[in-house]
């Protein structure tokens, strides 16, 4: 069985105050019917501007927070209905890597402890073996033995991200969710870490969800692409399909921007969000009828989009 993860119709609503000075409440559909399927050894790249729901999706899949509804099948098990005990053993097989490795590493723990801890906790090694295994893992992520005794603040951003990646590999996970893992790194370091993700993917047959707002990075690393806009998937398909033959106006805009093409249209940030296509206000190809109802994802398995122009 090749399927690692299957997500069906995930919903997550946040209730927020309209502004700092307001008592009015507003509902934000951070996830509005998101589905995806991910096989062993494959990487899905998730793109979309900030606020589109990428991190919420990552957190919900890992059950760091509970979705309001939907189904999450991980290794064939329904995460929202299994017992705590079962969840605990399954958790070991899912790992997350965040944008800022500084916040995911304990500042008072040396690299050795950061990596040895999950190894010992999950009884992957005994105390005697720990040191050798930690050094091995460090080597896998491109750090030498001398890093064993370093604290997070003694390392650069790129080195910390290597440690965070090493730590996530300790439990030999089936799924890694990387949420903007290179976004805060400098260009010269970003390439190194992208290469590291490629190595991991090749070697360990891990399934990966790779979240980024940088289309070029996502394109380089992914097999499939999922484009999110305001809590919905607006386009999804194989990398080549989405990049060479983008269907949704939002995807087209992102691809042009990534190529360094600038465009004129003023993006309106405020609009009636309850009616019609949520991209209507910014769409370069809209028709009046796009306001009437919400477009659904349609197309083939290789390429789907939620746009009335395409259906």
């Amino acid at each position, binding site marked *: 069985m090749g399927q690692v993860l299957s997500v069906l119709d995930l919903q997550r609503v946040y209730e927020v105050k309209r502004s700092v000075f307001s008592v009015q409440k507003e509902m934000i559909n951070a996830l509005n019917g998101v589905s995806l399927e991910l096989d062993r050894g494959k990487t899905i790249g998730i793109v979309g*501007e900030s606020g589109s729901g990428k991190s919420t999706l990552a957190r919900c899949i890992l059950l760091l927070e509970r979705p309001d509804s939907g189904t999450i099948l991980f290794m064939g098990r329904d995460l929202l209905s299994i017992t705590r005990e079962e969840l605990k053993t399954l958790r070991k097989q899912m790992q997350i890597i965040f944008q800022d490795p500084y916040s995911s590493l304990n500042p008072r723990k040396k690299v050795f402890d950061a990596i040895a801890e999950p190894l010992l906790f999950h009884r992957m090694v005994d105390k005697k073996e720990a040191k050798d295994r930690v050094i091995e893992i460090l080597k896998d992520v491109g750090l030498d033995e001398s890093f064993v005794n370093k604290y997070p603040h003694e390392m650069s951003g790129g080195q910390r991200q290597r440690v965070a990646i090493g730590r996530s590999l300790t439990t030999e996970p089936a799924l890694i969710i990387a949420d903007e893992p290179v976004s805060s790194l400098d*260009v*010269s370091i970003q390439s190194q870490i992208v*290469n590291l993700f490629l190595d991991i993917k090749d070697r360990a047959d891990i399934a990966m969800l790779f979240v980024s707002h940088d289309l070029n990075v996502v394109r380089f690393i992914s097999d499939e692409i999922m484009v999110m806009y305001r809590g919905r998937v607006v386009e999804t398909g194989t990398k080549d399909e989405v990049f060479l033959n983008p269907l949704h106006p939002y995807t087209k805009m992102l691809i042009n*921007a990534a190529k360094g093409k600038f465009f004129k249209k003023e993006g309106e940030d405020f609009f009636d969000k309850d009616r019609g296509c949520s991209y209507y206000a910014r769409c370069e190809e809209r028709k009046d009828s796009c306001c009437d109802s919400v477009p659904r994802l349609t197309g083939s398995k290789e390429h789907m989009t939620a746009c009335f122009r395409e259906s």
Partner: protein
Amino acid sequence: MQLLDVTDLNTSFFADGNVIRAVDGVSFSVSKSETFGLVGESGCGKTMTALSVMRLVQPPGRIVKGQVVFEGKDLLSLSEREMEKIRGGRIGMIFQEPMSALNPVFRVGEQISEALMIHKDVDKKEARGRVIELLKQVGFDEPEKRYTQYPHQLSGGQRQRILIGIAISCGPSLVIADEPTTALDVATESQIINLLQDLVNDSAMSMIFITHNLNITRKFCRRIGIMYAGRMLEQNSVDDFFKEPLHPYSKGLLSSIYGLMGDQKRLTAIPGSVPKLAELPQGCTFHPRCPYAMPVCREEEPIIKEMGKGQWVRCYLY
């Protein structure tokens, strides 16, 4: 004559007996109507260079040496009062984080008016009229409505438009924009770049555009300066730079970007990490990461060499 001539600028931080040379011997010039891209990774001294030009360096930092000549005046020898007239008057500034640069309790229109009334001899009513015009110029469809709004009622991109309005309100001859789009989404970013491009094209304004994003400079700037560890390693025209960069560091940066857009399986990465300013290697600051490093590179720092018109490089290969 150049609009701005910066020569051998040195700005350092003095703390706990240590000297951190944030800007080390930086020279460049910007001519009239030109957009100059100042590019480099975080911590390389871009902001400190901009702040030095504006004489806004705060202790424990201090400009140690150098010359900044703007419209024929040596800025480093002006009195603070004369300098105040230049800041926000002849030189406009746009910063990365629009929220912190705006005052949350004042209407955005009033904040632009304020900037106008400090530098120009106009009364409130006149200022308001001009601000409405400015709001239109920076792309707002309903300037009267925007005038009365508070910063929190605007999106990040709209706030950045307001800051751009403030920066150009007094008709400056130079605008320094320090990573003005880094906090924004790609869509908003490209709108803001477009706006800046229009403003530069429609007036005789020059701009120093600070960014870590080479892709943007390619479309937007005419000349480019590459900074690394407080130094300017290369200066070039954008056309020549993207065709054939001179410095090995520039080559590495470009191949990281082209690699992502190309078809190969792995990226050619620059090895190692950016050095801390307090622990700089001897010799060329880039030599530990440089594929072309020679023995001499480890010993002494290369001097800046002029390669052609408007081309400079700091490297022993030349």
